[in-house]
């Protein structure tokens, strides 16, 4: 069965620069699976000690809000009572390899 040659699936990469600060999206790369995605992310996105922790997510597993509904989505927040989000901690739901 003729295997279709591809550049592998697309993964979005998030890097945590220092303990206690949130992971930030740095870009994407291609990898056949999570293990290689993490290794490739290490080589592509942390060549200059930019990180101490890597998250990888296959792009198809991300759902994004779309800007068209910006109007309904974000404007109403203006008139809401003012409140700060809690301090950031690494969630336990994240699986380590």
């Amino acid at each position: 069965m003729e295997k279709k040659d591809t550049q592998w699936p697309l993964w979005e990469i998030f890097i945590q620069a220092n303990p206690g600060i949130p992971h930030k999206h740095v870009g994407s790369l291609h990898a056949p699976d999570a293990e290689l995605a993490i290794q490739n992310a290490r080589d592509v996105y942390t060549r200059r000690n930019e990180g101490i922790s890597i998250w990888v997510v296959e792009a198809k597993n991300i759902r994004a809000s779309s800007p068209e509904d910006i109007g309904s989505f974000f404007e109403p927040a203006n008139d809401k009572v003012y409140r700060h989000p809690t301090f950031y901690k690494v969630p336990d739901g994240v699986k380590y390899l």
Partner: protein
Amino acid sequence: MEIHKALFEYCLRLADSSLILGQRLGEWCGHGPILEEDIALTNISLDFVGHATALLQYAAKVEGKGRTEDDLAYHRSEREFKNVLLVEQPNGDYAKTIARQFLFDTFQYYYYQALQESKDETLAALAQKSFKEITYHLRHSSQWVLRLGDGTAESHERIQNAINDLWMFTGDLFDMDEVDALLIKEGIAADPGQVKQKWNDHVAELFKKATLQMPAPTYMQRGSREGKHTEHLGYLLAEMQYLPRTFPDAKW
């Protein structure tokens, strides 16, 4: 043989293996099967050239004749190089490169793990730093042996052939002579004898997972400790040493 002469030899052996493998991996720069892997292999090459630089600097210091790491890297001939035979083997296809890498990474992993305890402070510190890089190298090559072994029929065949072709150069990794004997007694060098079984078990276990066969015991090539190499090394050095050999009094 007195210790400082043995130590100079010993540093060359460790340095040359890293230098020659770093050069071989450098050949993949701009040639990787996919951009991500091109970048990964270059990182590994950089690690090895970095190891070689530190080890050659130490060797030059131990020798005490005012030579530099570049003198040692660019102005010695084949018979003076002491890298293990495995690392000078040509890259071949990606399976050959990965098989060579995995067999060597597994050796370095257990060997440098032990070298961290060396009584020679410089070697111990160097081993500790290198061990982190070697741990990553082994993770990278192990994952690729799994993927090629248990990937497609073609990749399985290619890596099995590569392993079979390279197997006769693995014995040389564990060869020992009077330099090893003397420095092991002094607690300076790690003992390849202690590493061989761990290496064999580790390789066997991963091959099993990767649905690959351990090659049958075979006559092992040897001689790297006496500077006896394969014909491949000369061509590698001719290319690597080209500029300093062509312009001997130039400064780079």
